[in-house]
C-alpha cells in the first residue's frame, strides 16, 4: 500500500535540510579558517607595530637634543631616561598593554673622509670656468657625524624569544 504523498514529502524535506545544512557548514569551514589565520596574524603584528612606533618616536626625540649632548656618551648604550631643559626622552623598560618594551639608544661617532675637488688657482683664466682645473683632496673628519641607533626589544605575550626592532640614522654637526 503506497504512503500518503504529503507524509512522504515532509520526511524527505527534513533529510534534505539536514544534508543541505551539513554541506553549507562544511563550505563555511575554509572561510572560517582563513579568517582565523588572518586575525591571529593581525594580533601578532600589533606588538611589532607598537615597537616601530615607539622606536620612531624615541629616535625623533633623540634628534632634538643638542648635537654636543651625546659626546660624553659616544658609543655607550643609554637605557635610562635622559633630559635637558628642553627635551626629555624615556629609555629603558616600559610596559604597554602587558608587554614590556625596552628602548636603548646608542650614539656613536662616524668618522670619515670627504673627497673635495679643489680648484688649482694658478691654472686657467679666473673669468672662464672652462679653463679651470681641479685636484681631489681628501679631508678626514672626526666627531662631526654621529650615528644614532635606537633599538626597541620585547617578548611577545606567551612567547620566549626576544624580538627587536632597530632604526638607524646619521646626524651631522650643522651648528656653524
Amino acid at each position, binding site marked *: 500500500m503506497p504512503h500518503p504523498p504529503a507524509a512522504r514529502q515532509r520526511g524527505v524535506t527534513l533529510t534534505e535540510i539536514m544534508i543541505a545544512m551539513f554541506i553549507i557548514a562544511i563550505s563555511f569551514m575554509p*572561510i572560517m579558517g582563513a579568517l582565523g589565520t588572518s586575525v591571529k596574524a593581525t594580533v601578532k603584528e600589533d606588538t611589532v607595530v607598537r615597537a*616601530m612606533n615607539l622606536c620612531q618616536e624615541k629616535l625623533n626625540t633623540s634628534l632634538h637634543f643638542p648635537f654636543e649632548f651625546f659626546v660624553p656618551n659616544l658609543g655607550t648604550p643609554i637605557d635610562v631616561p635622559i633630559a635637558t631643559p628642553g627635551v626629555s626622552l624615556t629609555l629603558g623598560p616600559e610596559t604597554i598593554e602587558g608587554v614590556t618594551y625596552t628602548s636603548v639608544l646608542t650614539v656613536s661617532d662616524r668618522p670619515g673622509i*670627504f673627497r673635495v*675637488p679643489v680648484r688649482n688657482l694658478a691654472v686657467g683664466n679666473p673669468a672662464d670656468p*672652462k679653463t679651470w682645473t681641479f685636484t681631489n683632496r681628501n679631508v678626514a673628519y672626526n666627531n662631526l657625524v654621529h650615528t644614532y641607533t635606537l633599538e626597541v626589544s620585547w617578548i611577545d605575550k606567551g612567547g620566549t624569544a626576544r*624580538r627587536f626592532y632597530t632604526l*638607524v*640614522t646619521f*646626524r651631522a654637526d650643522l651648528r656653524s
Partner: protein
Amino acid sequence: MISHIYHSSHNRRGTAIILALVFGVLLLQFAIAYSGLVGKSRPQTDIIDERVRLHYLSTGLTEIALLKFQKFPADFYNSWRFQASSSTNLSFWQDTTGPLSEFSIAAPEFIEYKTNGFAASRSSFNERPIRLWLTEMRLMTDNRWNVEVLQIKAHAEYAGRTGKPVNIDTVRTLRTERITRR
C-alpha cells in the same frame, strides 16, 4: 488529482540539496579567493617598516652632504661653475664625471653603501641590507628674485620580501646665501 500532487512533490525532491551544493560551491570559491588575497597582501608591518627604515637612512645621508657643503662651500661653487660651463648636458649636475660629481654623487663617502648596502638597520624580522647613495646635489638659482637654493637628494632601496625593490627618495631643500670675498 492525487496522482498529480504526488508527481509534483516528487519533482521537487532534492532541490534543497542542489541549492545547498550550489551555495556551497560559491562559498568555496569565495574562500579560495579570500585565501589568495590574504596570501598576496603584505603584512602592515612590512609596509610601515620599509618606509620608515629607508627614510631615516636617506635623511641621514642628506645630513652628511649638507655638512660637506657647509665645510667646503667654495669648492662646491667652483665645481658647479666649471660643470655648468663645460658640460653639454642640460642636467649637468647628474654628470658622473667632473669635479661636481667628485664633490657629490661620485664621492666615496656618498656611495659607500651603494653596492653592499647598510646592514646595521635591522630587526628580528628584517635582516635585508639597505642600499644607499646620493643622487643629486644641485643649485636652483633664480636671478630674478636673487634666490639661491641648494637641493640634496638621496636614494635608499632594498629588496622587499617578494624580491621586488622598495625605494624611497629623500629631498632636502634649503636656501643658501653666497658671500664672495674679494
